[in-house]
């Protein structure tokens, strides 16, 4: 296969990682909302943890984006 084509296919495959991170971030906020509606009184105290979970899930998706960018512009 042409190396240039292989790079672009690899970059496209890296987009799967971004989609997976979308599932992860949705899970974080979805679970938070679900339990926050059950016990609204305790919800505000957990916002810090919500964003830590969000940051961890999002980072992995951003890494997929970095892989795509490296394949297109650097490699």
């Amino acid at each position, binding site marked *: 296969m042409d190396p240039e084509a292989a790079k672009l296919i690899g970059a496209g495959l890296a987009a799967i990682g971004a989609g997976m991170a979308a599932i992860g971030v949705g899970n974080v906020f979805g679970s938070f909302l679900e339990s926050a509606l059950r016990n609204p009184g305790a919800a505000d105290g957990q916002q*810090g943890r919500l*964003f*830590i979970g*969000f*940051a961890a899930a*999002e*980072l992995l998706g*951003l*890494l997929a*984006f*970095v892989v795509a*960018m490296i394949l297109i*512009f650097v490699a």
Partner: protein
Amino acid sequence: MAAEEGKVDPMHQFTIEPVGSWAHWEIAGVDVTFTNSALWMLITTVVLIAFVQMGNKRQFIPGRWQMAVESLTGFVDNMVQANIGKQGRKYLPYVFSLFSFILFANILGLLPLGVAGIHPFTFTSHFTVTGILAVISFSIVLLVGFWKHGLKFFTLFVPHGTPLPMIPIIAPIEFISFMVRPFSLGLRLFVAMMAGHVLLEVLSSFVIDGTNAGIGFGVLVGLPSFLLMIGICALELLVAGIQAYVFALLTALYINDAENLH
């Protein structure tokens, strides 16, 4: 790479160039050119200082501006108190500067000044900038940790209540996750800002090229892309806030590790 085909090059907006006639200044062999990155850092600092000073009138009945500044400082103060505790007060100036600097930089970089011919430069979309910010946070953690706890700081790598046979496995994992912190901290902010700006640029190329290709493509491709762009712009404002918050929150958490061990 796409520029020679007459398309919009989404990476062009991240080029660092000298401003005006400042090109290639050297002090003792070191290039100290005043770049657009430095210019926007300066603008961010000036806007931030102006914003805080205009609300710093200490009126007994605060006006609107003072309320805005007070809610910003109060927000960061709450976050620091909740995550570090009472003795976290001394880190408030650092965390507040970090949070508001990143927030203002992100938002100033999103301003639609291109209409007036000025191109805003988001310096938080460069790893050199966010990496240095992350390294500063990490050094504070190391300094505070070793200053306060001495060699006991290494107990950070053995969580409380770890069974003895698990220690050889847990300690290296904890060590790696500790050493990776500055990278993940800097990487997150830089990639999130870069991804957003690339996305906006790509969508704008859809609008421009679609509309240039004729009325049919303009309605079918250009118009939906333009509507999507408006939505993405709102999302980018949200991301600008969230990324600044996450950076400050994680810094506060890491300082808490150094301050209280765990």
